């Protein structure tokens, strides 16, 4: 096994265990891993961005291929840096105006089409199906998203939730029933979202524990076993030190 893989296994195991120590209590090992994570992420992003944008998308095309038209977006982008000079900061508004204008122009029609019109189209479906030869039919299958029963459930759900967020009318009498129905639908949606969130978080834990089990292998030098012992020992020493310090202060 290559030395890079072995070093990687030791670093990954150590940082995972340091982060897990937070479950016991906040401590310097956790802080070390947390700060290292932030630092490495930012450093990686800066290096990759510099290499891709400055070197490959700006410098090389201009210098090697003579694509001088690229100087226009570079100039607009450079205007952003005037934010750091208070007297010239107003110039950056041109760059922002360009970004906001282009961004809105691209995003608004596409978002309306994708998330509003398409979803309305899917929500407003015929409640009954007209089948040639069979006449008007009603399908009861809950498992079929296009069934008549599901169409009615969606209609009731959408209408009641919209009514719940309609605050111009007091929710009393029949309105209260509709608003309560809306709350029920919202609770089911929140429950489903929470269930999926739990599943996702457990998946992350499974991922880390799978790696820790893999790194108990002697071919890696059993970093999981060594570092679990070392981490626990460090936590015990730290805990004793802090408790003896407290005693002295008292």
């Amino acid at each position, binding site marked *: 096994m290559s030395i890079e893989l072995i070093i990687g296994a030791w670093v990954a195991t150590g940082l995972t265990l340091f982060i897990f120590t937070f479950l016991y209590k906040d401590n310097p090992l956790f802080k070390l891993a947390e700060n290292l994570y932030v630092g490495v992420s930012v450093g990686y992003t800066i290096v990759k961005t510099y290499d891709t944008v400055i070197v490959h998308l700006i410098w090389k095309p201009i210098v090697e291929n003579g694509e001088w038209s690229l100087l226009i977006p570079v100039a607009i982008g450079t205007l952003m840096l005037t934010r750091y000079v208070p007297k010239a900061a107003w110039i950056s508004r041109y760059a922002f105006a360009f970004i906001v204008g282009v961004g809105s122009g691209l995003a608004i029609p596409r978002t309306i089409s994708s998330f509003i019109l398409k979803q309305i189209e899917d929500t407003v479906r015929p409640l009954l199906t007209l089948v040639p030869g069979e006449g008007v039919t009603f399908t009861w299958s809950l498992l079929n998203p296009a069934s008549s029963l599901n169409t009615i459930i969606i209609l009731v759900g959408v209408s009641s939730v919209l009514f719940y967020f309609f605050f111009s009318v007091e929710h009393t009498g029949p309105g209260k029933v509709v608003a309560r129905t809306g709350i029920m639908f919202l609770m089911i949606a929140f429950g489903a979202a929470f269930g999926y969130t739990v599943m*996702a978080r457990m*998946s992350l834990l499974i991922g880390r524990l799978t790696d820790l089990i893999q790194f108990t292998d002697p071919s890696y030098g059993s970093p999981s076993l060594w570092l679990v012992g070392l981490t626990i020992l460090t936590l015990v020493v730290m805990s004793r030190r802090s408790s003896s310090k407290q005693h002295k202060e008292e």
Partner: protein
Amino acid sequence: MTFAERMLKIDRRIIFLVIGLCTLLPLLYPVGLPIKISPEVRGVYDHIESLPEGSVFLLSLDFDPASKPELHPQSISLLRHAFRKNLRVIAMTLWVSGTGMADQVVTQVAREMGKESGKDYVFLGWSPGGTAVIINMGQDLYGAFPADYNGKPTKGLPVLQGVASLRDVNYAISLGAGNPGVEAWYVFGKDKYKFELGGGCTGVMAPGLYPLLRSGQINGLIGGLRGAAEYEILIGQKGKAVAGMDAQSATHLAIIVLVIMCNLFYFSSRNRARQQGQARA
């Protein structure tokens, strides 16, 4: 203090320990609980199965190492399936922090399946702009990515023969852990350039993407580690996702039991407090 009150004030570290053991033990001693294939995962699988050899398959790995446990197994299974079907694979990422990992997974699976970079697949890497990259690719793929991740010019690569823009892609899948991800690929990609789109996502994102699935805006959805496990079963190559399913079931069971117990203890202590209040009155 009653038993219920004591349980409600239990040290949270005991709960962490219970969850930790429920995860660790099934990983060490797997039971092999059955995994049922959901229609949304089958939708992605069936579409890839229906593609003829040499079709263009775009896989956008829009995640970073923070979502690796869920989306890495999905990407491995999808790449294995695509390579087995001899599709022309175009891989890329919209997340700068996931570039190295995406390159590693594509290269690893390609090597495993005996595929050659530039001929059978290409990893385009990352380009700045997020959603703007999708629009740019829709107009001119070579303008968005003049060179691949290894610096080779994309123009002239055999794998990209006949591919000028997103309109020439037969099937695209975004494995998204946030924004830009599946939604961005629909809004700025499929809706405009009319190619078939599937999705893969973390568990947290899945409920938000079901409306897109229902309305047919995406033709399939692989949700979280569970979805990855289903896909591994479908392609007949079990991996890390299937191995984690026993642990997933055990932790879910433990959480359900904890939720029920907490509710019972809560209502029990509330009733007791009410009774004491009435007795004093």
